[in-house]
């Protein structure tokens, strides 16, 4: 069992959980993720390791409520335990001192971006971070990002915090202003697609971290496959990071919706069940 040591909400639908997992805390690197299962009826869901503490033997994950499993996870409390946690999975981010690195994160992509920002800074890079959200209340990890970035640009769709506009606008502003040696983009597939098109225009080598559907996370099923440069790759073992200019994002978006109807039905059933049991609980 993997005990939850700490928990807080970063925004209405985003929670940070600190989980006991000593082996993973020790061996994880920036870019790695875990797969967890809440209980015996649960599915296996992948989450990036946002941070770790070797002494305490804990890892931190940041999860956004989007469906049944993430909802259940956000509803867990300190002292509760997860049935299964396995990792660290995936290849680590290739971190080196390249000069100036532009890190761009959208939505919950900001969470997996954080350990990369941290590692890039510690490797001696000039780090400029752009984070984007729909509105002020959904902006997460602002202070953490600021601590490890030479500059932090916040973009909101409605202009309620930072600048009004899309993540790509914030990126382009930086690119036009100064020499960027490398870019890292993480977020919803559609955001990564356009972020990659933006950096491609300026020939900036760009890495995207792909959040495909997964089952085992060890290369056994192929659920996570994507086309990169015309070749099929398994994200869990050969990724999650790939050359953003070669990823077929349109295919990836289709594949992310593979179980959409089933997941949506499951989620609405689940929410209904919560409502129907609610009176019994109070």
């Amino acid at each position, binding site marked *: 069992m993997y005990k939850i040591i700490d928990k807080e909400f970063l925004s209405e639908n985003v929670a940070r959980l600190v989980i006991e997992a000593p*082996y*993973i805390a*020790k*061996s994880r690197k920036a870019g790695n993720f875990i797969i967890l*299962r809440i209980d015996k*009826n*649960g*599915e*296996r869901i992948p989450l990036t390791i946002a941070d770790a503490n070797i002494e305490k033997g804990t890892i931190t994950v940041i999860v956004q409520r989007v469906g*049944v*499993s993430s909802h259940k996870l956000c509803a867990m409390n300190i002292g509760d335990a997860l*049935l*299964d*946690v*396995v*990792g*660290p*999975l995936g290849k680590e981010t290739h971190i080196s001192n390249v000069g100036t690195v532009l890190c761009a994160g959208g939505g919950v992509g900001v969470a997996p971006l954080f350990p990369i920002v941290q590692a890039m800074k510690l490797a001696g890079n000039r780090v400029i971070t752009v984070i984007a959200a729909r509105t002020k209340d959904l902006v997460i990890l602002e202070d953490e990002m600021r601590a490890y970035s030479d500059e932090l640009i916040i973009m909101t769709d409605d202009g309620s915090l930072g600048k009004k506009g899309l993540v790509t606008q914030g990126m382009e502003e930086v690119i036009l202003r100064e020499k960027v040696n490398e870019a890292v983009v993480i977020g919803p597939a559609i955001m990564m697609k356009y972020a990659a098109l933006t950096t491609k225009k300026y020939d900036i080598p760009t890495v995207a971290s792909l959040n495909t559907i997964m*089952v*085992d996370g*060890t*290369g*056994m*099923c*192929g*659920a996570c*496959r*994507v*086309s990169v440069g015309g070749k*099929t790759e398994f994200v869990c*073992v050969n990724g999650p990071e790939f050359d953003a200019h070669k990823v077929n994002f349109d*295919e990836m978006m*289709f*594949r992310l*919706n*593979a*179980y959409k109807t*089933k*997941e949506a039905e*499951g989620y609405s059933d689940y929410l209904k069940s919560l409502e129907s049991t609610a009176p019994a609980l109070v």
Partner: protein
Amino acid sequence: MSKELDKEYYKAERKAEWRNKLRKEIKSKERTNVVRVQMPEADPNIRNKSNIEVNKGLTLEMAVSESSRCLDCVVPTCVSGCPVGTNIPKFVKYIESGDILGAAKVLKENNSLPAICGRVCPQEIQCEAQCVYVKKLSKEGSAIGYLERFAADYERESGNSSIPELAEPNGIKMAVIGSGPAGLTVAGELAKFGYDVTVFEALHDLGGVLKYGIPEFRLPKDIVDFEINTIKQMGVKFVTNFIVGKTATIDDLKNEGFEAFFVASGAGLPNFMNIPGENFNGIQSANEFLTRVNLMNGADANFDTPVHTGKNVVIVGGGNTAMDSVRTAKRMGAKRAMIVYRRSQEEMPARAEEIKHAIEEGIEFINLASPIEYFADENGMVNKMKVQKMKLGEPDASGRRRPEAIEGSEYTIDVDSVIIAVGVSPNPIIQQSMPELETTKWNTIKVDENMMTSVPGLFAGGDIVRGGATVILAMGDGRKAAQGMHKYIKETILAEV
């Protein structure tokens, strides 16, 4: 596959008083006139809608009658067809004499998982193929697999199964990587020698392919769990959610005091065909489909994991994995559950019994055909596939006739679900984490005659060494490796003290 037979040993065994007596009770001629037992099976039209086990198992009367067919041959050629050299005439004759627990004991001398092998071994090309009935009498072989299952089930159900005798604990720590049949066998054997054994498993459940691959209707999970429990009772520790090479490396485990290692990480990497449209939704590997159903209970609404099936389902391939997938798809409500296979039925690598069962259950076979492209609707969901007809040409290196495409023979099939079962490759995680480990060009791990790899103290066996093979070969490797590991410890650690 076949083994050298120690003829003198079997001759001497055969002279045992009870065997002499039993042989005399019925004349050989009469024995050969007994009709081979028919396995009682669940009704095809009921079972193809449920998960009940297809083969119901023999009754005691059936088993005794079948065992009386066995001629207790002077040279039991059947034994040479068994990869682990099961003493077939001895266990069969125990059944005939009514000592079923005695029979189970004989089986366990060479095989720690007889209830499983009796169900899943391809007997028709192994032990039963070498039986004198097949070789000399042009009759159906002795039903060795059914009898093996009978004896093992009888022992389990009688509550009389015992844990094997264990040597004094020696406190030496051994690590096993992977809990499939190879890993389970090594763990059991090492425990018998007195070692302190820990099995590390990447998934959240134990058993490897026995759990996530082979479906309930062919191998009930309870049976696998029973065997795992026996190994637990022998003192073996199991750690799930632990990927050696990721969660901790072999070197980390060495630092924790493990002295020798057995890698049984299997051939879990699914192959695809790399043809256009293969990444459309609704097209998945057999591993994904079977894992969602068997490991994650995806077909049960009480579980959160979704699984995609359809009304018109095609499975590409002709092996056990393809048969398991197509029969599972049928059970999940497919109207047309189809096999598309590029050779003819005779070349199919699946167990003969599975093909027979599939036909009874209403599976369609589209043989001598190979997919060349998939098409999808506007949401990227597969809706058609193009296949090309094939013909058989000259035999290739494997001795099977090579399929050749017939130009201009393409046609399309309407599908809403496609499952790819065209083979697996070795799991790469351990190899990636240990560059010094020697591998073949297929990325299988190289081993010597003791199953030791190029890294001293690191042994390997099962599918990670052979590529996709069989349960019994994985177990055979496990037994051999346990001997090798014991020898290694005696020559290194124990020699030092």
